[in-house]
């Protein structure tokens, strides 16, 4: 029930926002998203008090004849993802206060629509519903990028759209294939997630492998995993900052979340056979992207590549399919979501205050605004996974998980620890430190909304770095049950 509310609320809100005029839309959107966050918190406490009692699930028939149900519900992982979404969207909206876009109402309406779809993806317990939300999430972001994006956006966003759609069509085939194998004894086919799990387990190795790759393709493109990543940097750079935040902060998690909930349990045999390959790809992606990030000129692009590296580690951890790996992945998904939003906001602030994101052109900003420098530094440390920042918990667990799969792979993936430090510090030094003031431009002080956003991000980074227990308490049992289904 509550989950249903979580999905409905943004939908209704978005419709209202579409109707609203001018900056009223902005405030309305902020209010709605905050309300959503409050609701999600309420759900969280319900869940915490007693997972069983909390009435989260919602089951209504949608297409009886095809066994499609509108069934949503939350386990620990899903709840975490929903919390992330509900937490980030207000920040994202807040972060947009300084950009003066046209057609505010459609902008925020689309963002809220997106939120609806995202929550749906994280909550869906019905394969078909999952796919529908999955595709649904694509459309608002496409328009956000198309309408408010940077130069050459038409081609780039289109590439992004087709690329992802292409992948998800294969996922659809995979899911339908599973669906066709459901209800062997009962004779009644169904899209219910558990039935799909069961169907998947009954397949032989070859069938499972086929399903595995078809579904993994979609997720791999979404994340993205090397070598399917080339749409990502361009899209991130071209999209409006808020779009980038949505893409990298939340949408990217759809892929990883999908692997956890919709791939691991359906193809255990295939995972044993092909998991290594997938992990290898992910690990290659880590080092590859990190290396590329070192030589980036545009700071936003640098972050984009670093995000590829991070997500590579996450997917490697998930595919190693052990408690530490998967749980680490979940934690890291949250941390990465928060940090990357912070980083992109910083990129946006740089652009707004100095008119450029070119690392070479910037410099000496520390002299002009120490506060900004400190906040920047904290977020940066979070993303290089310094202990006592949220980034570290996840990264440690992840490398731990990968290590249990293969020590060599872990060592290889671990290189990101070093390379991450290299490119992050290098860029920080070039942008913030040194004597040179940015082309004589006075950087000035931060706008209130930016400041608030950054501070919130920093607080979260440190708070969950020091005391990640709440997250772990949610993730641990959920992951454990999930992995137990693999056996």
């Amino acid at each position, binding site marked *: 029930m509550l989950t249903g509310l979580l999905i409905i609320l943004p939908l209704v809100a978005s419709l209202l926002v579409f109707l609203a005029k001018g900056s009223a839309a902005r405030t309305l959107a902020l209010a709605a998203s905050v309300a959503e966050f409050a609701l999600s918190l309420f759900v969280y406490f319900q869940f915490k008090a007693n997972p069983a009692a909390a009435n989260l699930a919602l089951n209504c028939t949608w297409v009886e004849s095809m066994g499609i149900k509108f069934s949503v519900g939350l386990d620990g992982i899903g709840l975490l993802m929903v919390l992330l979404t509900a937490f980030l969207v207000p920040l994202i909206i807040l972060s947009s206060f300084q950009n003066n876009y046209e057609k505010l109402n459609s902008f925020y309406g689309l963002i809220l629509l997106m939120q609806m779809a995202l929550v749906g993806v994280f909550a869906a317990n019905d394969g078909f519903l999952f796919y529908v939300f999955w595709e649904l999430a694509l459309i608002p972001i496409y328009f956000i990028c*198309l309408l408010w994006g940077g130069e050459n956006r038409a081609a780039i966003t289109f590439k992004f759209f087709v690329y992802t759609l292409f992948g998800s069509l294969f996922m659809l085939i995979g899911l339908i294939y599973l669906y066709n194998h459901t209800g062997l004894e009962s004779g009644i086919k169904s899209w219910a997630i558990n039935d799909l799990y069961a169907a998947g387990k009954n397949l032989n190795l070859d069938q499972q492998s086929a399903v595995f790759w078809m579904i993994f393709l979609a997720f791999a493109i979404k994340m993205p995993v090397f070598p399917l990543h080339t749409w990502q940097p361009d899209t991130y750079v071209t999209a409006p900052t808020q779009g980038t935040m949505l893409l990298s902060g939340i949408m990217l998690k759809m892929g990883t979340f999908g692997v956890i909930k919709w791939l691991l349990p359906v193809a255990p045999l295939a995972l044993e056979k092909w998991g290594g390959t997938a992990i290898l790809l992910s690990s290659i992606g880590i080092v590859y992207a990190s290396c590329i990030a070192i030589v980036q000129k545009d700071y936003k692009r640098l972050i984009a590549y670093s995000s590829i590296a991070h997500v590579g580690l996450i997917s490697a951890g998930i595919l190693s399919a052990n408690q530490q790996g998967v749980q680490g992945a979940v934690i890291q998904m949250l941390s990465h979501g928060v940090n990357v939003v912070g980083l992109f906001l910083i990129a946006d602030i740089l652009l707004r205050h100095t008119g450029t994101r070119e690392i070479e052109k910037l410099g000496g900003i520390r002299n002009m605004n120490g506060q900004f420098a400190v906040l920047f530094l904290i977020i940066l440390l979070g993303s290089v996974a310094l202990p006592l920042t949220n980034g570290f918990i996840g990264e440690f667990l992840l490398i731990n998980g990968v290590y249990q799969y293969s020590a060599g792979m872990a060592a290889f993936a671990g290189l990101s620890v070093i390379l991450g430090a290299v490119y992050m510090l290098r860029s920080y030094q070039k942008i913030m430190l040194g004597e040179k003031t940015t082309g004589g431009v006075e950087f000035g002080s931060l706008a209130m909304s930016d400041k608030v956003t950054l501070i919130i991000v920093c607080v979260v980074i440190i708070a969950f770095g020091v005391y990640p227990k709440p997250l772990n308490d949610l993730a641990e049992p959920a992951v454990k049950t999930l992995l137990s289904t693999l056996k």
Partner: protein
Amino acid sequence: MKGLLIVSGLGILAMLAEIFKFKKLLFPLVLLGLVGAYVANFIEWDHSYVIGVFNNMIAFDKVALAFSGVILATAFFWFIMANDYFDNEKTIVDHYSLVLFALTGALMLTAFKNMTTLFLGIEIMSIPLYVLAASKKKDVKSNEAGFKYLIMGSFASGFLLFGIALIYGATGSFDLMDIRAKISSYESGSVPVFLNAGIIMMLVAMCFKVSAAPFHFWAPDVYQGSPTVITALMSTVVKTAAFAAILRLFMIAFGGVSESWSMVLSVIIALSLVIANFSAAVQPNVKRMLAFSSISHAAFMLMVVLANIRSNASLDALLYYSLAYSIGSIAAFSIIYTVTKGGDETFDAFNGLGKRNPLMAACMVVAMLSLAGIPITAGFFAKYFVFTTMIGTGYKWLLILAILTSAVGVYYYFKVIIAMFFKSSSETETITVEMPQKMVMILTTILSLALGAAPGFVAEIFKF
């Protein structure tokens, strides 16, 4: 049956309007008649004859009624959309009656039980369309379209007839049931070769009617040359009817010997998918683009025929697909019709439509999404059904090809969207839409969303 009679009656009524001077009333009368026909369908639904009437010449069983329902619904919208195409005092009556006669033919194609009725149905549907395609008399393009359609159409019917003749030779009958019985009575091996030859030739002819490659060449030219509304009619009503016919023909008559034609069909589908999508991707002209897209949709529907013709699932799939596709196209064409009144039919005609008329742009977006098959529009479920029917069969390669090409398909549908929202146009004044078109746009848009939201009903339709 009553539906058929009512529609043909309407055609004649339209001609009487010339004499008794009630042309003004014609429009409402026709709509009323269509509704009446629809109602008649519903009445017949429960006690629908499975065995045909007139010595089993024609039988309005559930399948027939369902498809004729689709056709009538589409026609209903079409008339509203095309109402100002019938403004010319001198020709209004002829246009009405011709369209109605074409409809009659279409309805026959959903219900025939005999080669004779099949043949007559096709011709009754086609001949008025030849004329209508050419009905912009001063416009050479329109003339050419009509001419091409005529020549190639009759050439194709030549093959159709040859096929019929061969089958008659092999089975000694024109009745689908008899043919089926006769075919099944042959023990394998002793089947006269020219039976298969006949089947193939009929297949070819029907593929021509639904414009599947390599028999698709007429479609783009004719679609482009004809008046937009007529193009709409062709790409919706005619296609649906043709598919109903194929379904019927191959389900009833040749279902038994599918191995003799499935291979050919798979090749034809593959060709259509590739050629259609690839050439659509580079079309500057919207109508031509939609022509190619209709070819690719035809390929999708043929996949159902290929997958498993005898099952309910494929009936559902085909029915739903034709419904979704017709509604999508009607929406698209009604918008194109309004936008291209200026004459420019390239994508640039849509530039800045997002600003100039947001409502219309929104409807177009939905229509395009539906044609591209993106959730939760009707088009998505249409594709979904096709996939479900295909996935069990041995034609995995075809499935993969379909996915790849439909990814290409997204490209040209989104070209429209990009043009509407991304490109800015020279003129900025808002485009005004007449009430009827606006109604059609909104209704069809809502419908394609609604169908997408509740696709369950189709499975409920056929339970026998």
